[in-house]
């Protein structure tokens, strides 16, 4: 039963990882930008949520209503300015620029908010509560909620990309941005919208992680970005549902590793990551090859 419990916990944690990963995957799929500041942006979102809750005393979950739009706007603005101007100088430049952004954010957070770790809404029953199935399996309300949110986000993204006007434009621009220009679409604007959506999802990831665990200025790179990368690579680059599958595989591997030896949790996740990279570098769900 302990093993079954480990697998269930792993699957649920996978939802959290998918929230980290889907924005990273979207930005790479559309703009070919590998956003190395992705995790730090999640931490910023978490800190903003803490600030909003402290100042306005709104319920924790309501902070989402404020933080997600704020991060989406930040995503649009960052894409139209910093990231676009680095893209114009070549894809490699975006790596350096987003790496620099990551360093700046981390050190800025250290400077202004110290290295102390903070949690979001730690006193809530939602954060601490759980229910039992049998004697061995204990499911936390929070993890279940995060998993449900991840599934809802992916469904929403899929609907947005396949049905809406801007979703269609995002896919068109990802295919051929010059042809999109000839159809009258300003690809920079479309890139901005894609980045806004990606930042919105990572804001959810940051808040979820702040409730599930603790945030400190280095969480962004040493946890969120790494897990996001692992989930994207395991699931398959550019595949939306692949991020959930990748997140679940990573989560289950970690939980099974922890079951064997508590100190092997991270190691087990990275071993699976490396095995997938060697045996199936295109990921478990590979995107349809395009002409």
């Amino acid at each position, binding site marked *: 039963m302990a093993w079954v419990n480990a697998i269930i916990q792993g699957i649920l944690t996978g939802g959290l990882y998918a929230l980290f990963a889907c924005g990273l995957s979207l930005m790479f799929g559309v703009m070919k930008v590998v956003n190395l500041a992705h995790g730090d942006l999640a931490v910023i979102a978490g800190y903003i949520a803490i600030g909003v809750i402290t100042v306005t005393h709104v319920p924790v979950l309501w902070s989402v209503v404020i933080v997600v739009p704020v991060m989406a706007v930040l995503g649009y603005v960052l894409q139209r300015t910093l990231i676009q101007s680095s893209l114009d100088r070549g894809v490699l430049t975006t790596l350096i620029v987003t790496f620099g952004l990551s360093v700046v954010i981390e050190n800025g957070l250290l400077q202004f908010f110290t290295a102390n770790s903070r949690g979001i809404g730690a006193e809530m029953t939602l954060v601490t509560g759980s229910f039992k199935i049998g004697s061995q399996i204990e499911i936390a309300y929070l993890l279940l909620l995060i998993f449900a949110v991840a599934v809802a986000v992916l469904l929403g993204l899929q609907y947005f990309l396949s049905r809406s006007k801007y979703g269609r*434009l995002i*896919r068109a621009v990802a295919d*051929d941005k*010059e042809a*999109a220009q000839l159809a*009258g*679409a*300003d690809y920079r604007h479309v890139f901005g919208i894609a980045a806004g959506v990606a930042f919105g999802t990572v804001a959810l990831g940051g808040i979820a992680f702040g409730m599930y665990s603790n945030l400190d200025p280095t969480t962004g790179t040493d946890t969120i970005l790494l897990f996001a990368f692992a989930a994207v690579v395991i699931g398959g680059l550019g595949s939306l549902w692949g991020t959930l599958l990748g997140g679940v595989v990573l989560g289950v591997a970690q939980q099974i590793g922890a079951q064997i030896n508590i100190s092997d949790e991270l190691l087990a996740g990275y071993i699976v990551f490396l095995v997938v990279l060697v045996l199936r570098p295109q990921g478990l769900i590979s995107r*349809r090859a395009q002409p």
Partner: protein
Amino acid sequence: MTEPQASQPQETGTPLLEVRDLVVHHGQLRALDAISLTVLPGEVYAIIGANGAGKSTLLRTIAGLHRPTSGSVIFDGRDVSAVRPERRATQGIVMVPEGRRLFGSLSVEENLKVGATYARQGPWNIERVYEMFAWMRERRNQLTAQLSGGEQQSVAIGRALVSNPRVLLLDELSLGLAPVVVQRIYGMLPQILETGLTVLLVEQDVSQALRVASRIQCLLEGRTTLEGSPADVTADQVEAAYFGLTGAASASPADDRSEA
């Protein structure tokens, strides 16, 4: 530079599109050297020339995808030389690019919808494209990669038409297509012109261009070698201008002389 041609009857109208002394460089290479042309409303103007003559560069510069070194593109009386390609498209300069360039992960209908997103007001819509290309409606949910070359070209034309262009730029429609298919696609041109469009096309297939155009211009290595209406130019003149043989209207160097 160019042999004087008999004056055209349309030449009294105000031009819809004008290119003045256009010079375009690809790096060091001078791809276009002082090209000028005037396209009148409602006409079909064809640019012919061999591979590498600068035809596509000319069309891409008019669409805004290349920045000219000097010279200007004037559309409906306004200088659009500094206007971005997407703004030119919404103002009515719409190009069907060489090689179709459809959105590969989008269905036929989605490709058309992207074309219609920023459309001007006008006679064209997706329904009308379906009426013109009867097969398209049934296959609207297919990915464009599953279509034949001719079908893809039709979708590319449809995608351009639904944005209701004033001038339609057609870049090498015949490229990679069987002659029968090329005939069929050019056979659609009257239906398109009926709606008041103006067409500027680039074509390697000279006989096709001569058949549909009201005026032609021949390019060779970025320069104009012949200009006139198909009725006024002889086959020899076209051949000489196309290949750069002297003795015709061309100003090409004397050492090019062969069997002209």
